[in-house]
């Protein structure tokens, strides 16, 4: 049992690879489904959600409450799938949406530019100069997004468990290598790993509830779940009414499965 997350640039063979893995391992395959599910949960169109989430953020608005809500909804949709164990995810930003989770095999596929251009020319009938420009544009937009949102370089091999270069290796060969890796004990879902996946799902549900609620949606909070206990980190304004803490606790407790909420917030004065 393993969760496999595949990250790659556009036209690097990620979809074919994910399908090959699903066939070999009989795991469910999830990609943009999480965006659809998030959109339907929030009652917005998929196009709006994608745009709101993926538009390159500026420094001053990368943490807007709308973007935070969209990302929380997508991450939460992904967490619902992940909690079941076996999964192949080849949608956006798996390496950051699932960062820190145990039992996740994070794979990055890279391919030489010539091969990616050829693939686009063949599938879309573009000329090769336009195809290369398009690929470079998409690459840079995605790289910028990950850098702005998470401060990470999407190409940094440190973010992944393995990077496979399709210069010599074919997709079926890469698929065989990842299948073999997923079978190793390093990625076995032990009881401890399964518990952490459930914790992750609960934390994502709480984060989404806080991002949705009128009184708490402006806050940038980090949530950890340990069984039914929820720890809330981040900065919050110390209102004279003293109500902010109560509101956070109330929203978090409304999520099924939450028993205790522990506030580990840094309070700041909103009117200094």
């Amino acid at each position, binding site marked *: 049992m393993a969760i496999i997350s595949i990250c790659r640039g556009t036209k690097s063979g990620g979809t074919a690879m994910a399908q090959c893995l699903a066939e070999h391992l009989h795991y469910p395959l999830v990609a943009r489904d999480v965006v659809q599910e998030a959109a339907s949960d929030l009652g917005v169109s998929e196009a709006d959600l994608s745009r709101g989430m993926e538009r390159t953020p500026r420094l001053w608005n990368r943490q807007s409450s709308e973007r935070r809500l969209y990302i929380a909804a997508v991450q939460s949709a992904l967490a619902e799938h992940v909690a079941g164990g076996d999964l192949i995810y080849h949608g956006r930003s798996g390496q950051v949406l699932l960062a820190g989770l*145990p039992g996740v095999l994070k794979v*990055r596929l*890279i391919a*030489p530019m010539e091969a990616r251009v050829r693939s686009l020319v063949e599938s879309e009938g573009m000329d090769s100069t336009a195809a290369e420009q398009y690929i470079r544009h998409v690459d840079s937009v995605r790289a910028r997004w990950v850098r702005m949102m998470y401060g990470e370089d999407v*190409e940094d*091999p*440190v973010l*992944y*468990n*393995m*990077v*496979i*270069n399709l*210069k*010599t*290796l*074919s997709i079926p*060969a890469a698929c*065989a*290598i990842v299948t*073999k*890796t997923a079978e*190793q*004990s*390093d990625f076995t879902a032990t009881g401890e790993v399964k518990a952490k996946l459930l914790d992750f799902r609960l934390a994502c549900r709480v984060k989404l509830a806080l991002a949705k609620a009128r009184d708490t949606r402006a806050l940038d909070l980090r949530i950890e779940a340990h069984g039914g206990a929820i720890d809330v980190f981040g900065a919050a304004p110390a209102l004279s009414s003293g109500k902010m803490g109560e509101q956070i606790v109330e929203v978090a407790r409304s999520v099924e499965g939450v028993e205790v909420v522990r506030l580990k917030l840094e309070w700041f004065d909103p009117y200094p």
Partner: protein
Amino acid sequence: MPIITISRGTLSGGQRTAECLAQVLDYPIVGREILQEAARTLGVAVEDLSGKLQARPSLFTRLTQERKKYLLAVQTTLAERCTSGRLVYHGLAGQFLLRNLPGVLAARLIAPLEQRAQTLTALHHGMTQKAAEEFIQNVDEERRRWVKLMYAADVEDPSLYDLTVNLESISLDTACVIIAEAAAQPQYEVTADVKKGLEEFAGGCREQLLEARGS
């Protein structure tokens, strides 16, 4: 099954992975001793060759005839070992010395600094974690600079390798299994053509070395 080169930073578990692969595939294994062989060929002391080769090159000296000759001697020695199509190489710059050759699988191992420093402190009792981390960072930096100057490349660039394995949550045994699985893929089959290519490469290296020694 191809020739396998393993690149890694110091104390990242490269040698153990190389030994494991050699055992699993029943391959000969070569590491830094390639420098000794090259030194013997040139009739110089290994310290001399190794020192000249790896001393931090300045912009003015990197392409001196001597350095070129030493590097060619190492490349030729390695190329000759490769003609059988069976080798695990974990010495200097395998990914560059055998670059673009058919029948070669270039692997890179990476590991978090903290983990590497722990390996070092376990070897040297009394060494602090901080001192170990500094030592490793210095060695990394030296190598990075060397590769940058000699090959105008970034040693950490994953496009230089067929496969990069991060040992943060993958054990050395698993890394060995993964690389062996990659080596078993049909793209790396050492066919008669590939062997011919390897022999021609060794021949070409020998010629260049002769030329360099003559000049």
